[in-house]
Each structure stands twice: as structure tokens, then as C-alpha cells.
């Protein structure tokens, strides 16, 4: 598939991607020979336990780290490295991190945090009105604009992180354990915000989580990672009704349920 046309190309294509952390003496193979295709408009859930390589995969997809081996194509092109092209890529692909306490700058107001990517990515637009629009989209009061992160609850902070990620109008959202640090009741609220916005804006969603029940709800396709390798990749209902890999079955059995 040389020079695929822009429209038919998968959004992301990972070919034999590996990633190694560490130096000469001790190193950890976080991802081992991953092949993965993400189509535009897909909602893909990536599950696995701590150390399975989920977060490494998220960082690779948003070009925060470069793979040690293999290649990652975005719309048929290798991930950019030069500044201009990287800025263009970041306008299209954004990420929400797990810890809403660590991922917001405590010295910036909520409004400044949300506006930061608009300035940093060189987008010309009426910033104050865009910030208000984003606050409304994630269900926060316009008055939150002037507050600081420590004045908000975990759920509210995660809404801010989502608003910030959506500020440059990306086409793709990567969520790395975006609801894992939240209480069950608040988690449902934030999941509702993500689901509504993904639908309204027609985003491609890569949703990374260790929680199978969350992934079942939010994604149309599930990829199971185990020790840096993909052990299962199928439509959500197939993975949940007929899991093939023993590890997937163990993950399913571990979900605490109310009888």
C-alpha cells in the first residue's frame, strides 16, 4: 500500500511497533511488536493491567515518545518530528491523562489552562468566547473560568482536562485512564460528557483503561494488551460474549458486580 489516498487511509497504522525503556544494563520491553490499525470514527478501547504497555501506547499515538522499533503512520504518513508538522498533528490529535491533580498547572486559572493549547498551537480565534463555549460543552459553569485547579473537585478537573484537549478542535481524542481516579458516581458523569462530545463532534476515540465495564460501555472495538503484546482484538460484543484469550477471561471475571 504505497501512497494510499488520504480518505481511505487508516487514521493510525502501527507496524511492528516496539518500545523499550531503560539503558544498556537494565531495560524493559514495554511494547513488543504491535500491529494495530485505527480507522477514522472508530471508538477503540485498549485494556490491560498496570505494566501491560497501555500508557506507552497512548504516548506513542500522540507523539510524546518515539517508538524504539517499527513505524507509526498517521493518515498514511510517518508521525511528524519537525516543529511545524508536529503542531499540525497536535491540532488533530489530543490526549486526556489519568490524574486531574497532576495534569493541570496549579498556577493557571481554568480559563488559562483551556486557552493554552489554542495559543501554543498557533490557532487564531476569539479565545475568551471559545473558552466559554468549551466550559459549557463539558458542563462547567462560566464562572469556573477564573478559578484555580485546587478549587475544583476531581470530576470537575477532569472536565477541564477534556475541555483543554478539545480546544484545538481535534479529530482524535486519546483518553489514558481518564476516569480511573474518580468515584463511581462522578465517573458516570464524566463518561457521559465524553460519550456525548465524541458523538456530537464525530471524534475518533482511543480509550485506555484497566476497567472492562467502562471499556464495554464506551468502545465499539476492544484491544487487550498483556505484557506488551496484543492478545485479543475484536468487536466489543464478541470480546465480552466470547473471549478467546485466558487473560481476557480473567479480566472479565475480576469485574466487581452487584448481584
Amino acid at each position, binding site marked *: 500500500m504505497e501512497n494510499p489516498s488520504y480518505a481511505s487511509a487508516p487514521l493510525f497504522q502501527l507496524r511492528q511497533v516496539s518500545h523499550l525503556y531503560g539503558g544498556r544494563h537494565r531495560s524493559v520491553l514495554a511494547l513488543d511488536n504491535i500491529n494495530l490499525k485505527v480507522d477514522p470514527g472508530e471508538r477503540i478501547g485498549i485494556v490491560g493491567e498496570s505494566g501491560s504497555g497501555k500508557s506507552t501506547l497512548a504516548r506513542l499515538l500522540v507523539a510524546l515518545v518515539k517508538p524504539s522499533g517499527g513505524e507509526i503512520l498517521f493518515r498514511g504518513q510517518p508521525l511528524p518530528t519537525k516543529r511545524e508538522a508536529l503542531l499540525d498533528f497536535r491540532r488533530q490529535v489530543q490526549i486526556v491523562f489519568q490524574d486531574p491533580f497532576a495534569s493541570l498547572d496549579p498556577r493557571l486559572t481554568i480559563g488559562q489552562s483551556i486557552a493554552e493549547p489554542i495559543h501554543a498551537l498557533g490557532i487564531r480565534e476569539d479565545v475568551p468566547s471559545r473558552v466559554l463555549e468549551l466550559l459549557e460543552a463539558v458542563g462547567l459553569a462560566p464562572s469556573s473560568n477564573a478559578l484555580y485547579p485546587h478549587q475544583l473537585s476531581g470530576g470537575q478537573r477532569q472536565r477541564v482536562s477534556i475541555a483543554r484537549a478539545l480546544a484545538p478542535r481535534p479529530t482524535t481524542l486519546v483518553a489514558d485512564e481518564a476516569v480511573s481516579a474518580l468515584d463511581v458516581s462522578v465517573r458516570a458523569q464524566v463518561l457521559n460528557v465524553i460519550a456525548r462530545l465524541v458523538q456530537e463532534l464525530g471524534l475518533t476515540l482511543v480509550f485506555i483503561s*484497566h*476497567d472492562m465495564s467502562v471499556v464495554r*460501555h464506551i468502545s465499539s472495538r476492544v484491544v487487550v494488551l498483556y505484557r506488551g503484546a496484543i492478545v485479543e482484538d475484536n468487536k466489543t460484543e464478541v470480546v465480552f460474549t466470547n473471549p478467546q484469550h485466558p487473560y481476557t477471561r480473567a479480566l472479565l471475571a*475480576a469485574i466487581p*458486580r452487584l448481584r
Partner: protein
Amino acid sequence: MTLLEVRNVHLAIGGVELIRDLSFSIDTAQRLGLIGESGSGKSLAALAIMGLLPYRSTVSGSIRLSDQELVGLDERRYSKLRGDRIAMIFQEPMTSLNPLMRIGKQIGEVLRIHEGLSRPASYAQATALLERVGFDQPAQQARAFPHQLSGGQRQRVMIAMAIACNPDIVLADEPTTALDVTVQAQVLDLLAELTSEHGCALMLISHDLAVVANVCDHIQVMYGGAIVESATTSELTHFAEHPYTRALLATSRGLDDLDNESFGQLPTIAGTVPQAGQFPPGCTYRGRCERESYQCQTPPVVTGTTHQVRCWHPYGSSSEGA
């Protein structure tokens, strides 16, 4: 037999009332679940029992462990109870272990202090405890520092420390919230197994109703610093009477519900938990409640005996409104 009895406890920090009229008891070997959202006061309740409250806290009421009153107990006597008769497991195993001490020595410390064991004897006992909590090479792993262990292993170390002196009761505050689901299941099983082996009571605190329901035989729901409903696990999960408990159950079941349209909107609880000290007077759940009336401006009284509820308009114990 009643092991721990909490009676009319009020707690304020810096003049802000955070726990109001908390009363409950735990029997010997009972497994009690305490659930609620962040800010409901559930962790503070545990810290009050442990006598680990921050400065500027004022406590009134009574907390009795067997025949000993804990409210106002001096620090010297309290520290003899802690780790010996009451033990606590915290949420974050990375910050609750000493990063500079090998885990064998760290577990042994509690045995040296409370049981007066010698260094070698306490170390040997610590190694045996590591094996009990599922370490496959306890002799080698006793020499590890906390950073060399995974989150699940660190929480197992915390469990080993908690059960080292065969306490009467273990308070576990969100012990598995920082862990993956698979590890969470293992750690909960271990906690349940080891406490019941010794006839040790367990108070499990969590925001996750499903987690608590799988381990505990009795559940209490906390909101705004007070217990709003208390019943056996099966009673509470099937015949909840308080509107808040019903809302919590609905959010917990939302993700499990296969009929729920995938990617649709999940049930949530309207509004957010108010900030500390900003709960409305009267019923603290006012403003978020679907059954609110003028009557809710006065604090509701607790009704029921085995199934208690603090509400003016509880759902009937039948299937009404379910």
C-alpha cells in the same frame, strides 16, 4: 458481641462540622462496609477511630473498643492500641510505607513494638507473614524496598503489617482503589480470608458499592458526615430506602446493565457533593434529592431497627419506585 461502638460522634476541624451524629457498631468478626462519595466523611470516621485526626479537630461523643473509651484517650495509650488491637490499611500503599526501610524490617517493627520480639525473631515472623499474604519467595522479598514492589504487592505488605499482631479490627480505607481490577479482586479476597481466619472484624471503606457488596455482610451509606442508611448487604442492594442509596445503586449498575444502550448516557446522581461545611441545614442530601419537600429543612430522624434509614420520605421496602 459488640466490639466497637461509635455513639453520637460529632467531629469538627477548624470549626467546620464534618461528621454529624455518627452512630454505629461493629460486632466481633463482622465485616462492615462503609460507602459514600468523596467528601462524605468516611475516611475521617476511620481516622477518628484510629485517633489520627489532624490538629484543630474537636470530637464529641463516644467511641468504645470493647470496654475502653477512645475519645480523649492519651496518645501514649492510643499508640499501644494502634497496630496491636486496631490496624488500618490506607489507600495509597506508596506513601504509607517507609521508602528507606526494607519491607521485612518494616513488618517486623510492629511485632518488636507490640509483642516485644527480638530483631531476628520479628524478621522471621515477618517473612512468614509475607508468605501468608502470597509472596512466593518471602525470604528474598523481605529484603526488598517498597519501590521494588508493584502496587498490589505493596498493598499485600500493608495487609501483612495490619494482621501481624492479630488485631481485633482492621480498618481498610479504599485499599484497592489504586489497583487494577484483577489485582483488586485478589487483594479483597486475601483481606476477607485473613481477617475471618483470625475472627478479626473488618471495616471496608470504599466509594464502590460493588466492591463492598462482594466482601461485607452489612453496609452503611454515608453522606454529608452522617450515615443515611444501614442494612445487611442483600437488604441494602435489593430494598434500598434512601433516595441517595438508590441513586448510588443506579450508577453502580449503569455499567453492568447489558440492556443499557452502549455509548448511551449512564445514570448519574444530580449535582455534586457540596464542599466541606457547605452542606445545607436539615437533610444534607437536599438539593440533589428527587423526593425533597419542605419537611426536609428539619434534620430527618433515623427510623428502623435492623434496616435503618435517615430520611423523611424513604422509599417503601417493597419494590416502589425501583
